[in-house]
């Protein structure tokens, strides 16, 4: 061993480390910068369009008279219907997988399949919705067809979130209930579900906040871009905020781009409210067990 051949080169190595640390920091900073630019860009273009009239008017070919009433109502209908379809199906599937399913090939298939569905591009769900709900079931280009499509799209998210919530309920609770003579369903209905509900609701809100921003599948099933009336039943044709945004953005005139920015602000505010609600719910009930 000669002392000469060992060169720790500590200064150089430290310097390389410091540079790398800076690079990582710049990467993180990049994302934040982009988010800031995006928000400023949208606010600068769209803020001056925001008014009660903008929210209360129907779309128009004249930018000054255009509004997003039908898009807002369409989005609200869409959220309600999507929740009504995906909540029972998703929670039911999660209860089955967590509480009932035997450990066999079928259960493994179900679980793998749910994982795969989460990675299917949303436009493919649109193709499915078009063929099954619009044509085969004859729902037409209606709110119901759109909501059924979006419900299938968010189902994997609802199922996985509900499964996590059910898993977090301690098994001692179930055992106590069985010990008192309750049946399986009574145990789930009266003890497990109420305990898991906050977690399930958090997952539900987050999946709805994904559904409210979806555009491609609804274009596939034929949501219209020009709707100058309020939908009154699930079988009505519809538009939603993201489609209105897409429509205005794809027009060449700058005035319409600004209208799109106005609608984007509304959409982002709705998303912010939903996500804040989900986070509050999560924090409030997180430390129960």
């Amino acid at each position: 061993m000669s002392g000469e051949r060992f060169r720790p080169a500590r200064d150089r190595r430290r310097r390389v480390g410091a540079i790398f640390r800076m690079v990582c920091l710049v990467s993180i900073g990049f994302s934040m910068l982009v988010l800031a630019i995006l928000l400023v860009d949208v606010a600068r273009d769209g803020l001056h369009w925001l008014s009660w009239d903008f929210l209360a008017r129907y779309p128009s070919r004249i930018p000054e008279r255009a509004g997003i009433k039908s898009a807002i109502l369409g989005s609200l209908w869409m959220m309600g219907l999507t929740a009504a379809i995906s909540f029972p199906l998703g929670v039911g599937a999660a209860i089955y997988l967590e509480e009932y399913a035997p450990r066999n090939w079928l259960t493994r298939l179900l679980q793998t399949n749910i994982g795969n569905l989460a990675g299917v591009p949303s436009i493919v769900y649109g193709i499915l919705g078009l063929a099954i709900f619009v044509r085969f079931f004859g729902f037409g280009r209606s709110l119901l067809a759109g909501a059924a499509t979006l419900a299938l799209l968010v189902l994997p998210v609802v199922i996985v979130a509900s499964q996590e919530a059910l898993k977090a309920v301690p098994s001692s609770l179930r055992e106590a209930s069985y010990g008192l003579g309750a049946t399986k369903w009574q145990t789930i209905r009266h003890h497990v579900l109420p305990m898991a509900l906050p977690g399930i609701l958090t997952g539900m809100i987050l999946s709805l906040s994904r559904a409210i921003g979806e555009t491609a599948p609804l274009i596939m099933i034929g949501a219209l871009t020009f709707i100058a009336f309020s939908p009154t039943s699930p079988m009505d044709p519809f538009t939603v905020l993201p489609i209105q945004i897409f429509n205005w953005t794809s027009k060449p005139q700058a005035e319409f781009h600004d209208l799109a920015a106005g609608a984007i602000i509304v959409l982002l505010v709705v998303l912010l409210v939903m996500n804040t609600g989900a986070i509050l719910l999560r924090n409030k009930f997180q430390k129960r067990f």
Partner: protein
Amino acid sequence: MTPLDLGHRASRRWGERLIALLLFGCGIISVLTTVGIVVVLVTESAGFFREIPIAEFLTGTRWSPMYSEQHFGILPLLNGTLLIAAGSMLIALPVGLTSAIYLSEYASPKVRAAIKPILEILAGIPTVVYGYFALTFITPLLRTAFPGTGIFNAASGAIVVGIMIIPMIASLSEDALNAVPLSLREAAYGLGATQFEVSTRVVVPAALSGIVASFILAISRAIGETMAVTLAAGATPKMTLNFLESIQTMTAYIVQVSLGETPHGTLEYRTIFAVGLVLFFITLAMNLLGQQFTRRFREVYE
């Protein structure tokens, strides 16, 4: 005191069975969804492939179903899709991975708690909003930097898709890095390694399969991304590697047809199912591959 209601046990048991069956029904819906997707895509494409040979579809270099001189070669659409995927990964890979390393190895818990919600916000912004951002901010910027760039160009779409998938790579890779046991880091520190050497030569290699999984899932997401590329990248299917030209992706083509007046049941209309089938199989293959890597990673450390 009310007497125990033992007489109703039999009916209770029936109710229990019915409920179990109903819940099983809910679970099976997800399988039916997959079956539905495959059946719809395959049966509708079958009508298309009866008229257009599969070989011509898969190897043709011209795509013009809507013109009088029709060509049905999917390669231009595939070219556009891969151009967007490659361009977006050029941004999202380095930025996402270094962000993940920062969050997992360098950031204090406080900084992490502040940064993670911001990444979640970025991940939660609807894709149509990114499309707007690309068209009204990135494209004008590109046109100033490179005069001659079209209003619609692949670069703008690729950049915005790259931004969109940074949070996905960052959070999945961070999970992978976090799962590397502390003992590995401690051993490396004990040998005199600097933090940089520990991060890049011990932790990253140890988490490699998880990181690769995050890359694969991100590419799959970029391939399936629709609204941003429809708005920003154009509607010109062509064979090109030039990012400054207008192109068309598979997803953007499907949107274009469904926005148009093409009547249901025609050959032109069926193209969306054939293109959708290719899109579905590509993303499915990538997701399965990604899951394979994730599983291998979990086997090692969990």
